[in-house]
């Protein structure tokens, strides 16, 4: 919500409550500012500054006043908070008339907040029910912006006996929460120390997901959205451990199904194994003789099929599917390079932003 919108809502919703002290002097909240009315403010502040006679507090106890600036407007002293008025906060404005007299104090509540739950988990990728034992990342899509800092409490994985996997046996890497800018997609990383061959954790505990075992991903309803309101429902997904995926994706094995000229049929690319869903959204593009072709991407068959529907009907001719070689499968392998390579068998340099092109024709 923009600051302006918040301020407007605050101005409408803020309700002044019990005033005490001098009847003739009062405090109002107007357009995001706190104003002392019916008191003629001098042009110059008192020796100790305006804050010595008028301050607004958020919260209780011995805390500093709200940060802000003062102006004198039409003879009235006005306090402009540096930060927008927030829902759920109790504000206390205190004016101490210089030269004596009872202080004037007024309390305000921040804008009303709708506490109706509406957030839910929409999708989780990979979508398949059998996941490789070296699965590197899991993506959780929410229907509304969520609050940061709760993932470690709200996402659990249960083993086949319903027991929460924890401690060194926990599947996910603790620490950083990786969100998209709208806080609607969370990226969870499986503990790479257990995925990567040769590391102590991998040798001692094994990979996070064991082949043949059953698991349940559990996301708690108590996860609060960006407003601080819990979700409508929790989420559960059962899956089984499959074999590790250690071979880099090989575009030679991809099957391209060309659309017919003059139609809006999708171009279809079938992969022999599921691919990383977010990377499928942007690492495959279509180019024709006249440059890039615009269209919409959809992904199906548990991320093993990519479909591209053009905005305008296909014209007959030669096209290319342009593939960013950084595209990954579920094990973090990308084209020409597995997730972990045996350095004594081969030395491969990182391929930086390289692409390859797969030709296809539209007839």
């Amino acid at each position, binding site marked *: 919500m923009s600051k302006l919108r918040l301020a407007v809502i605050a101005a409408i919703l803020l309700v002044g409550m019990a005033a005490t002290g001098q009847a003739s002097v009062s405090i109002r909240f107007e357009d995001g500012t706190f104003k002392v009315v019916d008191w003629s403010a001098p042009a110059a502040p008192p020796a100790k500054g305006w804050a010595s006679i008028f301050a607004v507090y958020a919260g209780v106890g011995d805390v500093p006043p709200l940060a802000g600036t003062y102006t004198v407007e039409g003879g009235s002293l006005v306090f402009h908070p540096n930060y927008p008025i927030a829902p759920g906060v109790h504000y206390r404005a205190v004016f101490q008339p210089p030269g004596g007299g009872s202080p004037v104090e007024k309390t305000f509540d921040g804008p009303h907040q709708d506490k109706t739950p509406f957030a839910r988990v929409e999708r989780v990728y990979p979508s398949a029910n059998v996941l490789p034992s070296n699965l590197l990342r899991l993506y959780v899509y929410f229907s509304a912006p969520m609050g940061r800092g709760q993932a470690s409490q709200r996402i659990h994985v249960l083993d086949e006996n319903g027991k929460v996997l*924890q401690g060194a046996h926990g599947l996910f890497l603790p620490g950083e929460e990786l969100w998209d800018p709208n806080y609607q997609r969370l990226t969870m990383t499986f503990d790479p120390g257990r995925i990567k061959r*040769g590391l*102590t954790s991998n040798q001692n505990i094994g990979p996070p997901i064991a082949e043949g075992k059953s698991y349940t991903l559990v996301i708690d309803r108590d996860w609060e959205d960006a407003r601080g309101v819990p979700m409508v429902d929790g989420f559960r997904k059962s899956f089984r451990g499959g074999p590790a995926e250690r071979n880099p994706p090989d575009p030679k094995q991809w099957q391209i199904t060309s659309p017919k000229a003059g139609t809006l049929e999708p171009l279809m690319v079938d992969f022999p194994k599921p691919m990383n869903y977010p990377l499928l959204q942007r690492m495959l593009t279509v180019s024709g003789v006249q440059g890039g072709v615009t269209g919409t991407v959809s992904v199906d068959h548990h991320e093993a099929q990519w479909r591209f529907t053009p905005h305008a009907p296909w014209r007959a001719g030669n096209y290319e599917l342009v593939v960013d070689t950084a595209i990954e499968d579920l094990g973090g392998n990308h084209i020409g390079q597995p997730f972990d390579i045996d350095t004594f068998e081969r030395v491969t340099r990182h391929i930086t932003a390289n692409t390859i092109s797969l030709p296809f024709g539209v007839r």
Partner: protein
Amino acid sequence: MRRITSIGIVVALCVAAALAVGITSAREPASPLANLTSGKVPLMSAGPLAFGPDGILFVGDSAAAAIVAIDTGDRRAPSSAAKINVQGIDEKIAAPVGVPPDQLLINSMKVNPISKNVYLSASRGRGPDAMPLIVRVDAAGKVSILSLENAKHASVSLVDVPASNPAARQDPRTLTITDMNYVGGNVIVAGLSNEEWSSALRSIPFPFKDAAEGATLQIWHSSHGRFETESPVRTFVPYTISGQQYILAAYTCTPLVKIPVSDLQPGAKVKGVEIADLGAGNQPLDMIPYAKDGHDYILISNSSRGVMKLKADHLEAYPAIDSPTKTNVAGVPYDTMTDLQNVQHLTQLDDSNAVILTGKFTGLAWAPGPPVGPLNLQTIALP
């Protein structure tokens, strides 16, 4: 999980640079302050902090995928040794910005090496509309929120897409800056993508020139000398061993590695050495290398394994491995500091003291989340 007290895994690292900028070759002008301009600081989020010369504070802005340098104007040396003790620091920051303490997330903490004042970066709010805060706490415990409305600053983008591009907001791809340090005229930045498994460690000369000027060093990380991964660096510190400058880097796949800075040249093959493996289900958060009573130590705070004190004498003697046979076994023993509990952030104050931010972790013992208040800020003697 067994406790690892003596591990001798050696690491081979090779660096292939996409762009050609040497880390140690940048020249510093007499006053980098001259390169900053006054105005509104374009900060969208405030993450990792690092101090450069002359009280210049670098702020990692993950939301904008940028690094912002801000002149703190804080260049007066303290009259006496700083001893900070602020109880309920979260409440003292939340109140002036008008939110409940549970809507304040403290992201990073560093000490200004000139003034010894403590700087914190924080988020006002937990959602996408959270506002960035830079907070200064002086030795007397006075809390000041730095005004970002008009300050001398400079910024550099870490990506090709300008932050002002409206379409950028629709792009779900983000780069989370995990750590940042100023080393020899360069800001070295470690980051994690939310989509690709990327290992980019960027070296950006300061004063900033252009986004494209930053070198991207692709660091390869291996353990046991056999399997390599492009693993992202989670946290790192500059470190001098026998007069040579290193960075001590902790990877997301847990090992702690020393990398000679002089070797971080484009195209060079670098031999790094793993000095400890801190175990599964854990990430190192902050590190302080220091010397005490004639010995070298590294103090490490962790996401779920408390604060460790590594005995780091003779790190220069740790050999790099160059064959698949695991022969060069050596290791760094460590003690867990049981009297340092609930440490959220740890940073060095001076040669013999550190500052810690403590608070009860939320969540579960094995999966701690951000703390709940009250949070306390205090000076401790390095153990």
